[in-house]
């Protein structure tokens, strides 16, 4: 195996390697079912086994030593260490006892090992059906992985898609009358999470954006007013019930412009501060070429969808994340002796990972919480 070759390999290639632990290492928090790190150094949850793949110049395959240890001398944890040529990779996992069900804290530490700068890419293995959001990964409506701020870096993106941590809810709405099929679905930002889409456009260019709404939960106004923020246009506040009524599709048009010239047109729906229901919703987006606003009745009826530059059934069939599915990749440039660490929060048995917009947890407070709980937990 040439040290300079571009080699990709899982953290631990084979369980038969002598240094690999014979048994998975389990860890828990008081009173909850354990998670484990398997003999390949992957974090095993009820939704997937999460591992890391390293590629890059000088990266070799190598066995991992998987062991149990106590963080701060108190917190049960698992660690997988492997020498990978140009770098050394250390995966660490422990359970943070967050209310109500806990969350597993998974860290990958990459250390430059040869005394010279190294360029490597760390890829997190995710299930095929996972949807990657801005700071979270979800399976269905369950948030399974949260990316802490250090793990949010420039990532490869598609030309358009959602760039948020809202959830898709196909079939949620019950639109009345003849209307575009997009009105049947929504994406919802639970607890006030903004719904955000980005569309690739010519830098500085203009467009007409139409947003479609259909409120099927509330019957009375003032429950879920929304703020629509389209780049280059004035914010519009809308209360779908007051404006159109329950189950009644409605649309708003915006003269949009790529104001910051970054070649992306941003469209967002936010909660109104103090609204009784802060869960944001959005059913449809049409991006039309600039010019006179389209006839909104025809847009609602679905007659103009084919003429749109982009037509999005939000939360429906043709929707997509701007981030590539099943893929979290982190290119790293490490100076000689340099270190880079990325931390993720993984949903453990029976729970969900925290929604980033709503959670206040940090690596520091998670660790302190674990220490506080274990310090006073009665010893068997």
């Amino acid at each position, binding site marked *: 195996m040439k040290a300079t070759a571009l080699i990709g390999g899982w953290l631990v290639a084979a369980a038969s390697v002598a240094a690999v632990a014979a048994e998975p290492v389990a860890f828990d928090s008081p009173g*909850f079912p354990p998670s484990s790190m398997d003999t390949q150094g992957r974090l095993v949850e009820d939704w997937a086994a999460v591992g890391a793949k390293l590629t890059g110049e000088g990266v070799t395959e190598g066995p991992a030593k998987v062991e149990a240890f106590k963080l701060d001398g108190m917190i049960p944890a698992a660690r997988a260490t492997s020498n990978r040529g140009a770098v050394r990779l250390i995966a660490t996992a422990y359970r943070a006892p967050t209310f109500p069900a806990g969350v597993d804290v998974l860290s990958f530490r990459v250390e430059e090992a040869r005394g010279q700068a190294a360029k490597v890419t760390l890829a997190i293995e995710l299930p095929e059906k996972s949807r990657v959001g801005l700071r979270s990964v979800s399976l269905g409506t369950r948030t399974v992985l949260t990316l802490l701020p250090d793990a949010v870096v420039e990532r490869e993106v598609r030309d358009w898609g959602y760039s948020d941590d809202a959830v898709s809810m196909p079939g949620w709405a019950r639109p009345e009358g003849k209307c575009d099929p997009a009105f049947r679905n929504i994406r919802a930002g639970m607890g006030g999470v903004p719904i955000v889409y980005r569309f690739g456009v010519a830098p500085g260019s203009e467009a007409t954006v139409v947003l479609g709404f259909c409120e099927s939960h509330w019957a009375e106004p003032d429950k879920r007013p929304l703020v629509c923020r389209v780049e280059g246009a004035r914010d519009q506040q809308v209360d779908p019930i*007051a404006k159109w009524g329950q189950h009644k599709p409605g649309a708003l048009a915006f003269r949009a412009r790529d104001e910051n010239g970054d070649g992306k047109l941003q469209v967002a729906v936010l909660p109104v501060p103090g609204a009784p229901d802060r869960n944001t919703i959005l059913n449809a987006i049409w991006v039309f070429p600039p010019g006179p606003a389209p006839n909104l009745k025809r847009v609602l009826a679905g007659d103009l969808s084919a003429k749109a530059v982009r037509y999005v059934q939000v939360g429906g069939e043709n929707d997509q994340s701007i981030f590539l599915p099943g893929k979290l990749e982190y290119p790293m440039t490490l100076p000689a002796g340099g270190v880079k660490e990325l931390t993720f929060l993984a949903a453990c048995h029976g729970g969900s990972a925290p929604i980033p917009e709503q959670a206040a947890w940090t690596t520091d*407070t998670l660790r302190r919480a674990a220490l506080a709980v274990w310090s006073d937990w009665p010893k068997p």
Partner: protein
Amino acid sequence: MSTHHHCSHCCLNRRQCMQVLSMTALGAGVGAPLFQAVAEEKAKPAPKDFIDAAKLRPCPEVKVAATFLEMPRPYWLGWPGTTYDLDKHQKTYSALLAQSAQRLGVKVAREAKPIDSEAGVNAWLAKLQAEKPHAILVMLQHMGCWSWVAPIAKKTGIPLIVFAPVGTAFTGHVAGPSRTPGIHVISSLEWPAVEAALHMVKAKRMFEETRVLWIRGDKRNETVVERLGVKVRAIPRDTFNQEFDKQPANEEVKDAASDMRRHAKKVVEPTDGDLVNSARSYVTAKRLLAAEKASALSMDCLGMVQAKLVPTPPCFGWTMLQDQGITAGCEADLFGAISLMMTSYLLDRPGYMNDPVPETVKNLLIASHCTSGSRLAGFEKPAAPFILRNHSESALGVATQILWPEGEPVTLVRFSNANEMIIDTGRVVSNVETPPAGGCRTSVEIKMDDVEDCRDVLGFHQVVVLGNHRRVLQGFCELYGIKHVRSPRTSTFATGVTS
């Protein structure tokens, strides 16, 4: 009622202490007859198994770093102006700060000299990052100092209190920092607002030092609530009734039962046996709290009554705990209990969590539950009059009808979760009698402030507390990054029914 129990700093035994408390509850104060009674009791030994409720209340270390920020002297033009006597003001505020710190039991480390340059601020920041105080207080002495405020908050990540005496800020200075999570701005000459801010820091530390027993289900585990840091220890519900069964009607129980009867304005349904059982609940709860190193509890009480596991709901026992600053929540509603802690730790007074009933004819909110603290105006203040009733839903045991003072302002506070708090205010109209009304025994009609329709009041099990505390609760939210919301001002029912 023998409830208030601050014996950790005195040398009274349990019985003596209860007498002190009983008399205080009656408004007797501390006088010669009281000490005479204590002296007569002195010979009796204290029971070995007595648990002092006061010692269950968290008593954390609270460290605050403080400094004056000023511009290089002498001042010439610009606010606060050449006539502003810097030395005199700083001497005054330093003295007030020392007094507030002493009253609250907060350790304040104030810089000996005012900081008057960016270099000085940076040196102080380095010191703060090493010392990690729980909060920072800056006292502004010039408008030019505002540019240092955001960097102090951002670079330390430590909650920041900004005191800007009138003459050091315009609206433009205050607006931005006031909207920044982690900063609480006081633009005023009112020093009590600064003391209230220090109290917020203390309250947050008390949350962090609290373990709440969550008595429900059949699991035993422990978690931590984000942002607030409250530890939640779940223990099986049966633990309580098993411990209750072991609790004899000992001297403490009998004393407590006797005090209940003596201090009640009226006893309607409960028998002597009910009073004893209610006191057993109180003592059982204290034992459990001590055994689990906990400071608060919330129990599935209704489930226990439904399953007939205990002869009495714990309602009156919870009143006694609440009056001593020990949060005792109903129905295993965890965030209801955390909301009770909020009033206990920040406002030094108990409240009660309520089932909200809209009174649509008079457009009032009726806040109703079968228990409430009685020291409504503060742990140190006399108790409100109360009537002993049974628990209305089951006709069992002892529940409390606390008579809230009519015409007085109240606040309704509720953590929806650790990141959002509902805050509303109103005024007590009357105490509702049961019968003719059904529902719970403490039942208070409230005219809501600035809420057009009582049907719009947000939340369930909101905690009702005496006084208008909107500003201080909002301040707590600002300092700790908690969103605060209120019920809609204008009616959402104005358009009538929808098909």
